[in-house]
């Protein structure tokens, strides 16, 4: 599954390069708050798998400093909500330094952890940070959907000499996925910055990331019964955005629907729409692009409210039909 793929990726990279190490809350003796790092402390010990106190700003700064001095840290946020306490270190100390130093000082670090909504954890624990981190030059921002994405992209992120924000999703951790033969290799990597067409289609392009790829594929299956063939693009990377992939698809289907869990204002979908407007694909649109997003409110707790705060399959189906004017 998704969780095992992440575990495998870290295990392989820890073995491959002794400069790689993992730090964060409960990553070692607890086996990881979400069990993503299960078994790693037993295998690699205190030096490589480090439990930190609950002090995000401090340990994130420490991780960035270690990266500056030649190590290759994986800094885990128990959830990205807590990264807000450390965001200065991510942006000002990590992202901007290679530029400010004109190439003298690099920061090869990965910040990873669950992002976005979970189930019943309410407003302070449910925010999606794709747009916030995606805004900043100097960062790469990755958002895997399935187990293969998780493994290949995490390995690429760890091997990358630059700061990478790696956005996982707690609801995906337990989801089983088939992994290809190729992905079993210890050198299996997926390039950062390239989207993947998960489903070919001709009537509408759906652009999405993380958990919502599943939603879009499910919606596509329903729509197919009505003769509507959706092309589903799994972004895989938020920054840099694979605009070529999106444009190629839109020029074929003439319709665009973006789907994300984050809030609408200044979000990932908003950026995609703007980019499509500015490029060759605009002239191929038969209708304005549509964004399907989380509701513009802090996440409520009660199940019925929470369910109605996030895009559901019926919302995606409805939006596709509206866009196609059917």
């Amino acid at each position, binding site marked *: 599954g998704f969780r095992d793929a992440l575990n495998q990726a870290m295990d392989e990279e820890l073995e491959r390069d002794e400069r790689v190490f993992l730090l964060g809350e409960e990553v070692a003796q607890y086996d990881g708050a979400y069990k993503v790092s299960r078994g790693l402390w037993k295998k690699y010990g205190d030096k490589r798998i480090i439990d930190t106190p609950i002090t995000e700003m401090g*340990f994130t700064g420490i991780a960035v*400093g270690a990266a*500056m001095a030649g190590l290759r840290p994986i800094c885990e946020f128990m959830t990205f909500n807590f990264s807000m306490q450390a965001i200065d270190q991510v942006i000002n100390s990590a992202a901007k330094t*290679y530029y400010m130093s*004109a190439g003298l*000082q690099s920061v090869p670090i990965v910040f990873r952890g669950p992002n976005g909504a979970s189930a019943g954890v309410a407003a302070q624990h449910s925010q999606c940070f794709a747009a916030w981190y995606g805004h900043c030059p100097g960062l*790469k921002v990755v958002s895997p959907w399935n187990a293969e994405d998780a493994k290949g992209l995490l390995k690429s992120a760890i091997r990358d000499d630059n700061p990478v924000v790696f956005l996982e999703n707690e609801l995906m951790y337990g989801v089983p996925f088939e992994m290809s033969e190729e992905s079993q290799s210890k050198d299996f990597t997926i390039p950062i910055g390239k989207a993947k067409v998960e489903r070919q289609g001709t009537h509408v392009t759906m652009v999405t990331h993380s958990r919502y790829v599943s939603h879009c594929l499910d919606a596509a299956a329903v729509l197919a019964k009505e003769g509507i063939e959706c092309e589903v693009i799994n972004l895989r990377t938020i920054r840099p955005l694979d605009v070529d992939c999106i444009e190629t698809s839109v020029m074929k289907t003439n319709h665009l629907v973006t789907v994300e869990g984050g809030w609408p204002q200044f979000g990932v979908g908003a950026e995609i729409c703007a980019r499509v407007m500015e490029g060759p694909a605009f002239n191929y649109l038969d209708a304005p692009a549509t964004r399907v997003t989380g509701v513009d409110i802090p996440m409520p707790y009660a199940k019925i409210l929470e369910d109605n705060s996030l895009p559901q399959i019926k919302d995606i189906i409805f939006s596709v039909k509206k866009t196609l004017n059917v």
Partner: protein
Amino acid sequence: MELFNLNIGCSCGSRVVVSRSFADFTPQATFDIKKCDVHRLEEGPPVKATLTRDQGLQYYRIMQTVRRMELKADQLYKQKIIRGFCHLYDGQEACAAGIEAAINPSDHLITAYRAHGYTYTRGVAIKEILAELTGRKGGVAKGKGGSMHMYAPHFYGGNGIVGAQVPLGAGIALACQYQGNNQVCVTLYGDGAANQGQLFEAFNMAALWKLPCIFICENNKYGMGTSVERASASTDYYKRGDFIPGLRVDGMDVLCVREATQFAADHCRSGKGPIVMELQTYRYHGHSMSDPGVSYRTREEIQEVRSKSDPISLLKDRMLSNNMAAVEEFKEIDIAIRKEVEEAAQYATSDPEPPLEELCNHIFKNDPPLEVRGTHPWATLKSVS
């Protein structure tokens, strides 16, 4: 055998050379230095420091170079050739010089934004520092960083966000420990930053994991315009590490700083964990070039420090009264430094600005070239690593 030559030029073009032999000067002397206040330590650094003639001249050269460089920066700023932020270090020279005298080039150092002195002591040439301040392509960061973002091997800047450099420094120390290289990291911050929460987070982890980190508070009595008494419930900055041992050091005496840093480095290298040092020092300039520095302190106070505690004068007077060097020697050094700084300033004002083609470079390391969005959709710029 070293001969000191006094060259006296006269207008007819010939020269009279007077030689004084090396044997005329005291090669080495031992000085009493102020005892450090200690926190959670049985004993502190020694109360006597030995100084050789060569060391003395070297420390003098370094401090005077930093002094003249900063005064030149002041001048260039007033001429509007340097813009933005410029936080000058004059008055605090003994800290940078004393620390560098006690550590190895292979050790590490990180500081905040009042960084020009450390940039020099960590090995960057004056002309590359001034050219960075004037935003030219010959600057150490090619004009991309400016005053607060200059870097060198084992020198991690120059950091603009108050306090952020402290966890970074602890992380560099972690890397030293991880790599088992017996190196230490000197992590500097000011009396203003001393109240930041992230410092205490860094102290906690450094102590827990016994990181070889020397946390140094340069207490110059004012965090921007706020005096220490108005900012800190406790101004005993050397005790603020709580469970971490601490030293309070006379930061105007280069020998005191050197001995204390040596003591601290030994402590860290022996695996005892981190240590905190408070250097009591003073800045002559205001917080930055936009602060005249006299609205929150008196001119009398500044003048008193200049006349009684100037670090460069202190060293010079010590050497002269112990016959370790001649007045003329110091004059020669001063002249040479002025010339060097003047030439560096010439370079910094005549070097071209960075070419626009390089605007977007250095976003990522080891990456293929990428396109960068410009100010409008038709401006596609190129970035190479």
